[in-house]
Structures are given as C-alpha cells and as structure tokens.
C-alpha cells in the first residue's frame, strides 16, 4: 500500500533541567540535558531504572513543565502536548479504554481533533492494517493478547498522523517473541512514514537494535553520559544485526557507561 509521505519533526532539547519541589526536600531529577533529534531519526534513550527517563518523556510531551531550559519542536517551544506528537506508553492495559472497541479506541484522538467522520474511518482502517490487526476492529482490548493490545496503542498513535512518535518502555510487558515482532513493527512504521521516533527503554539490546543513535543517561540528577551513533545498516534483522560485531561492541560500551556510573 502507499502512504502519504510525511517528514518527521526536529526536536531540540536545550539545557533542560527538572526539579520537583514541594513535599519535603526538592528532587533534582534532570540536569542540563541537551540533545538534537533530526527529522526522521530514531533515538533511543537508555539509563538505569529510576534515572528519570520517564520524567524526560513527560517534559517532551508537554505533560509536565520544565524547570529551566527549553524544548523545541520544529523551532516551536513545547509548553503543552504538541499537535504533531503521539505517545505509546508501557501500560497498554491502562492507556486503552476497556469500554471502547479497538476501532473506537484508535478513533478517539481523531475525534478530539475534530476530524470529519469519513476521514476518521479511513485513517482507523489504514492504521489497523499498518499494525497487522485486520479483523480485530470490533473486538474489545481485553479480548486481545498483550502484544495485540500494544499494537492497538501504536495504531492509535499512528492514526493521528504524528510527525514524532514517543514511546515509553513500550515492549516491557510483553513476552520475548512478541517483543521482537513489535520492535520490527516500529522500524517498519518509521520507514513507512519517515516519522521521528523516540524510544525510552532500559533494555540496551533493544536500544541499539532499533536506533540511529543512543542517548545514555546516568547519575542523580541524570545527565547525558554519552551520545552513541549506531552505524549498523537498515533494514535490520533480528538475527544478523544482533550477531554483528559492532552490535556487541556498542552494547558493551553502553553497559559499561551505565554500570560504571552507579
């Protein structure tokens, strides 16, 4: 099938710092994070658990305000959830609505954007096909497996035709086989639409396998320990790419960065 070609958005973080205040001592979570993500690029953000990856994601999506610094999406300052951004969260069981069918779940953001009914229907159907959920549109999320539910969440994100897709540990609660399938699905989506993609994960293998570049966060408060380019060629292959010597080296490098700073 053909897809209307879109260009990804450019994301820029300038000296982003986050401190949570109130309720006792201030909690300094993120310290002067700077990074540029080029249009269409795939960036993985890794770090030990509790480092503040999810906080960074909330700042990017405009759900939480930055304490200082700036986040720019195509040069525009992010203060509220941007139109061109869509998210996929880890907890698919909680982010999908159990009272809506798969189709209605995917349609909801389009409804919120006041898109005409005919167009909504078309977009929902093409998103369902994109993630391989044909024939499941009128089922409810709780009638589907975990992997399929996460596909629904991805379809919902795609239906709003974002220029940047942000995912928070999207594959952390599915089984190993499903995880590999979903990883390849995400790569296909990036290829099909050329959207800028950000993946927050604690899995170093996954970070390297998917990304053009890996941003390593460590420390308390978290800062950028390294930005590592991944020179492995696309399309990537679950067997060949992971067997490549560069894959092992990069993985080792990231592992040491994360472990060394603890």
């Amino acid at each position: 099938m053909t897809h209307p070609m879109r260009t990804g958005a450019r994301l820029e973080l300038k000296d982003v710092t986050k401190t949570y205040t109130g309720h006792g001592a201030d909690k300094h979570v993120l310290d002067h994070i700077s990074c540029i993500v080029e249009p269409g690029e795939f960036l993985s953000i890794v770090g030990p658990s509790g480092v503040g990856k999810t906080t960074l994601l909330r700042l990017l999506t405009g759900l939480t305000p930055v304490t200082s610094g700036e986040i720019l999406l195509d040069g525009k300052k992010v203060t509220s959830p941007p139109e061109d951004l869509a998210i996929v969260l880890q907890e698919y069981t909680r982010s999908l609505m159990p009272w809506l069918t798969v189709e209605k779940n995917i349609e909801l953001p389009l409804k919120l954007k006041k898109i005409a009914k005919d167009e909504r229907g078309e977009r929902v159907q093409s998103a369902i096909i994109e993630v391989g959920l044909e024939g499941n549109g009128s089922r409810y999320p709780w009638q589907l497996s975990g992997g399929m539910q996460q596909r629904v969440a991805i379809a919902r994100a795609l239906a709003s035709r974002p220029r940047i897709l942000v995912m928070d540990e999207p594959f952390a609660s599915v089984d190993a086989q499903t995880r590999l399938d979903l990883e390849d699905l995400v790569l296909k989506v990036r290829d099909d639409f050329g959207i800028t993609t950000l993946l927050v994960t604690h899995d170093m293998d996954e970070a390297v396998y998917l990304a053009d570049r890996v941003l390593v966060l460590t420390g308390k408060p978290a800062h950028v320990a390294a930005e590592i380019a991944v020179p492995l060629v696309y399309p990537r292959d679950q067997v060949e790419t992971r067997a490549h010597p560069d894959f092992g080296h990069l993985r080792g490098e990231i592992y040491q960065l994360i472990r060394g700073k603890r």
Partner: protein
Amino acid sequence: MRFANPKNWLWLISLGGSILIWQLVSVNLNDRPFPSASKISNALWAMLQTGEFWGDLGVTFLIAMVGLIIGIVLAVPLGLLVGLNEFAFRSTKFILDFLKVIPPIVVLPLVLLMFGTTIKFSITLVVFGVLFSVIVQATYGVRDTDPVLLDTLSAFNASKYARLKYAVLPSALPFIATGTKIATSAAVIVSIVTGLVGSGPGLGHSLSVAETGGNFPNVYAYVVVLGVVGILVNMLVSAIDKRIIFWRGK
C-alpha cells in the same frame, strides 16, 4: 446442559427441604404464631386473587422505584462534583460517611411529621436511604480514574470536558452501578418499612395490619412475597448492570 450440573439446582433442593422441615415442625407445634407451610401457601394463594394485594404491591414498587430514581438523579451529579474537587471531597468525606450509615428509620418520625402517612412521606424516606450510598460511590468512581488514561488523553490534547466525557465518566460508571445495586435493595426495604412502621401505603402496612389482627398465615404469606420481590429486583438490577458495565473486571 445447565441442568446436568447438580450445582445449578442445589438451591431448589435446599428450598424444598426447608419448606418440608417447616411443615413438619409447625404441624407438631400446633401454635398460632407458627402456621404450617400448607396454611401459608393457602393464604398466599387466596391473597393473590385479591385486587387489594396487587394494588399494595404496585404502590410499594412505585414508592421504591420513584424514590430510587429521584435519589440517583440527585446523587450522581453531586457525587461527580464532589469527586472532581479535592477540596469538596475532603470537606464532605466525613459528613457523607456519617450520613451513609444512619438508617432511614431513625429519621422516619421526622419525615412522618412533615408529610403524614402519605406516599410523599414514603418516597422521601426512600430517597434518604438511597442518596448517600450513591453519592459516595460516584465520588470514589471519579477518583478511581486511572491517571495513565488521563495522561494519554492529555497527550492527545483533550480538553477538560473531553477528559470528563471519555475517561472520568466511564471510569465512574461501574462504581455508580454498584452504588445503585446497593441502593435498590435499600429502596425496596425502606419502602416496606415506611408501611410497616410508619403506616405509609403499600405491602408493609398490610403486613402490619395482618399482624395486629393476628392473621399469621397472611403475615407469613406477605413475608414470602417480600422475599420474592427482593430476589426479582436484585436479579433485574444485576442483569442491567451486566449489560451496561460489560467491561467490569477486565
């Protein structure tokens, strides 16, 4: 086959057994306050032939349903408002929990003074019995809305109204339904009590008259009717609940 499984008709055996034991014991007691099962069933059969009985039943049912509906219509918006506002929730929590546990029979004399033994009196008391449990449930329903769901909607730029419509209300619905289930039983009980204790119209009053007149077979026949009505209403409410809240527990 459902009937192939003994679990599905065990209740019928225990019911039959209980009636049999009642019959055997009451025949030997030969005491007026304990009429035999056969006498009660005769009284019940005779009662079902009278227009008076069906009128009573209708009035009792009407009181319960009108009171229930008024109570829910008042309670749901109130509960939603209280649940949405942290200040309102904290300031009313104690009062609501306090009022919730006061049995309607306590305020019965007061309401009786206001309205006399009219249908207004009965309905008001049912509303009192229904109101607080539904308010409290609606409040908890609103507060139970998953923050992940709200974040998801916020990330899609949903307005406050859209979050209310697509996340908060559906999340509160199962709680409101549970509150309604509790309230329905309460409504039936209170509508009978208003007749029994307050001489309001309906089955409760007829039961009280039968008791005062020493017509014990009729007293028990009424008790049987009340039990059956209670079970039927509960089954109805549960069936409605299952249809509307089809995602419960998923």
